[in-house]
């Protein structure tokens, strides 16, 4: 397949994943802002930092971290190149470029999602409508995912899309950890009062996993467990280890199909092996913050290597 097309599929998947992740971040931020009006502003700021949008926000609105302003910014502000509206538009542009590699069902799902969200986000969303709008965003992405899983040939195009999805997802989970890591530091957890309930719930909600966490660990809430869950737990579809495994599978498929081991294949394997195959205590011992920073840069390097190895651009 064309390198450009592979790149479009990769980016289509990344943008789709990003819009869903951002919707989830808004959801989590909105909840905490409702329950904690005193710290709402700093919570919103950390949401923006996690989404990588704080820089744009400050440039456009300074320190105005109110719920209404931030939510509108993240959903539809033209000053925000990563707003859900613009990310969905870019996903759709990439889908159009790669149209010949998508089934009719997938293309229609992406296109419908662009049209539906375009209509929903035409005007500023009222606070009481926000849950519905966020639900619609999640639902649209579920429709795309369903069409994708149910109709796409399992060829190289499929694998490039999947790599995009998991690379973006790993990036998102790592960023959440990056912004909130201080809450998980043993020093905090060990100071008498248990880790802030609302805070850790926010973290788990940002990855749609607070139920799963309880199901797995019962009522025990500990920084170590949460970090383990998000980083190493291979059955959690948003954990770093899960995403890394998936990327290895998809790159492995390309390796077998192309009969050539790219550097990216080796990098992804090394990422799993060197970073995610040790107990959580070892990660804490080496420094959680250092671990996350290192993971984020390895993940970004992998993305660049994939782009080079598979000739997305000349």
């Amino acid at each position, binding site marked *: 397949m064309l390198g450009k097309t*592979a790149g479009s599929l990769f980016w289509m998947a990344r943008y789709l994943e990003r819009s869903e992740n951002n919707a989830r971040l808004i959801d989590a931020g909105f909840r905490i802002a409702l329950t904690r009006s005193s710290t709402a502003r700093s919570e919103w700021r950390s949401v923006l930092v996690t989404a990588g949008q704080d820089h744009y926000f400050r440039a456009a609105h300074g320190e105005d971290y109110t719920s209404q302003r931030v939510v509108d910014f993240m959903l539809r502000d033209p000053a925000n190149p990563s707003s859900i509206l613009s990310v969905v538009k870019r996903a759709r542009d990439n889908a*159009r470029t790669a149209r*010949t590699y998508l089934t009719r069902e997938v293309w229609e799902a992406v296109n419908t999602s662009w049209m539906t969200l375009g209509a929903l986000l035409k005007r500023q969303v009222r606070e009481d409508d926000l849950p519905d709008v966020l639900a619609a965003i999640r639902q649209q992405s579920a429709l795309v995912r369903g069409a994708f899983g149910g109709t796409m040939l399992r060829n190289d195009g499929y694998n490039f899309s999947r790599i995009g999805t998991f690379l973006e997802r790993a990036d998102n989970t790592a960023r959440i950890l990056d912004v909130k890591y201080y809450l998980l530091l043993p020093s905090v957890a060990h100071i008498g009062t248990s880790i802030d309930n609302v805070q850790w719930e926010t973290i788990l909600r940002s990855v749609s996993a607070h139920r799963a966490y309880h199901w797995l660990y019962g009522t025990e809430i500990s920084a170590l467990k949460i970090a383990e869950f998000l980083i190493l737990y291979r059955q959690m579809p948003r954990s770093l280890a899960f995403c890394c495994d998936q990327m290895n599978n998809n790159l492995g498929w390309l390796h077998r199909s192309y009969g050539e081991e790219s550097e990216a294949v080796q990098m992804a394997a090394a990422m799993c092996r060197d970073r995610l195959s040790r107990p959580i205590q070892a990660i804490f011992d080496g420094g959680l913050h250092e671990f996350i920073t290192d993971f984020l840069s390895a993940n970004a390097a992998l993305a660049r290597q994939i782009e080079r190895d598979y000739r997305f651009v000349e």
Partner: protein
Amino acid sequence: MLRGKGRGIQFFDEMVGQGGEVRSPYREYHDWFDREDAARIQRKAQQAEAFFRTTGITFNVYGEDEADERLIPFDVVPRIISAREWRRLSRGIEQRVRALNAFLHDVYHRQEILRAGRVPVELISRNEAFLPMMMGMDPPGGVYTHISGIDIVRTGPDEFYVLEDNARTPSGVSYMLENRETMLQMFPELFAKISVREVGDYPLNLLKSLSACAPPACNGTPTVAVLTPGIHNSAYFEHSFLADQMGAELVEGHDLRVVEGRVAMRTTQGYTPIDVLYRRVDDDFLDPLNFRPDSMLGVPGIWDVYRAGGITIANAPGTGIADDKALYSYMPDIIEFYTGEKALLPNVPTWRCSEPEHLKEVLARLPELVVKEVHGSGGYGMLVGPAASKKEIAAFRAKLEANPRNYIAQPTLSLSTVPIFTRTGLAPRHVDLRPFVLMSPQGITITPGGLTRVAMTKGSLVVNSSQGGGTKDTWVLED
């Protein structure tokens, strides 16, 4: 066939005769329609619109915001052509396309038709689409016009005219296919009742036809690719649609480069040569080294590969001369010259404004004529006399006098009408027809029917989509 200035002129309606009788090709459809609940058809028509939107069958209008993707209005009443009418049309179309191809070969080789004085030399030498670099070139298989669209209008029961030849990059075939697909989804029962000839095999025929024109350098199964200017082009939907249906790659200039004497596309595993390039970019943009240096759409060096037999370009560079509207007026002579037969399908009478006598007559009768730019397309830059204001006519007169060579004029035809579905029932609207023709060394294939364009506004004669025209599914009946 000329439309007078006054009102009350009768147009030929393809469905209903003057006495109110339903013409035979439409009988079964009309019976069905009469029994059908209008509200149901209305609902279906709305569904069709939603269907087109979801599928992304939109086009971008030049000069408007790129986000503004528009739908071409689709009308649910089919345009129906009898088997007998189609036989006659397709014979005429085939003859015309053969002559066009022979003409192009001649112009780029011995130029016998110019020597014989049947076509004036200036018409070629001053033609912007003429490519001197094509002189003496033999395109693979001897084919210039791989894909052409012959625009046909009707004015009476047996009166068909060719309005225009499109040999450059005729568009609209995706609408023909999607219109049928939509009709099949909305009204499956109609197709069970009425035997309509298939159009869905067009993409496969296109692939076969292009593959049959593979260049000498090709070994094995030819690799076909579609070259598009990109997602912001107004016809991008069609480009991706055709590539998809053929199972061919959809490439842009920056996906291609010349590698070891072949034009190759950058794949995830390196560069792979292309044998046949169905390009949807104009000649000027094909090769920045040999044509327009500022073009980002083409492939540097493709021309040299082409000359050396390393790739087939469809349509061949330089075929645009056949789209010239001044040349059009010579088509009857061209057909006779190369086929030895009279043209089976007549031209619309045409005044060439470059000739003083003709110009004089045109200027005198401007309010009743249609005047077109020689190189124009898409309905831009034309004057429809009877529909224009005095001011518009005066402005056009000035343009015409300043540069008469740039224009031709034709009588305002009383284009036939076919009803469209409106809230208040069926209402006649003017139509034309663009059949699509494929040519390869193995022969000519014409898809039964083609794209019917319809002026959605009452009384309007302009059917171009860029001017608010719509489309209909076109049925050719089985014998």
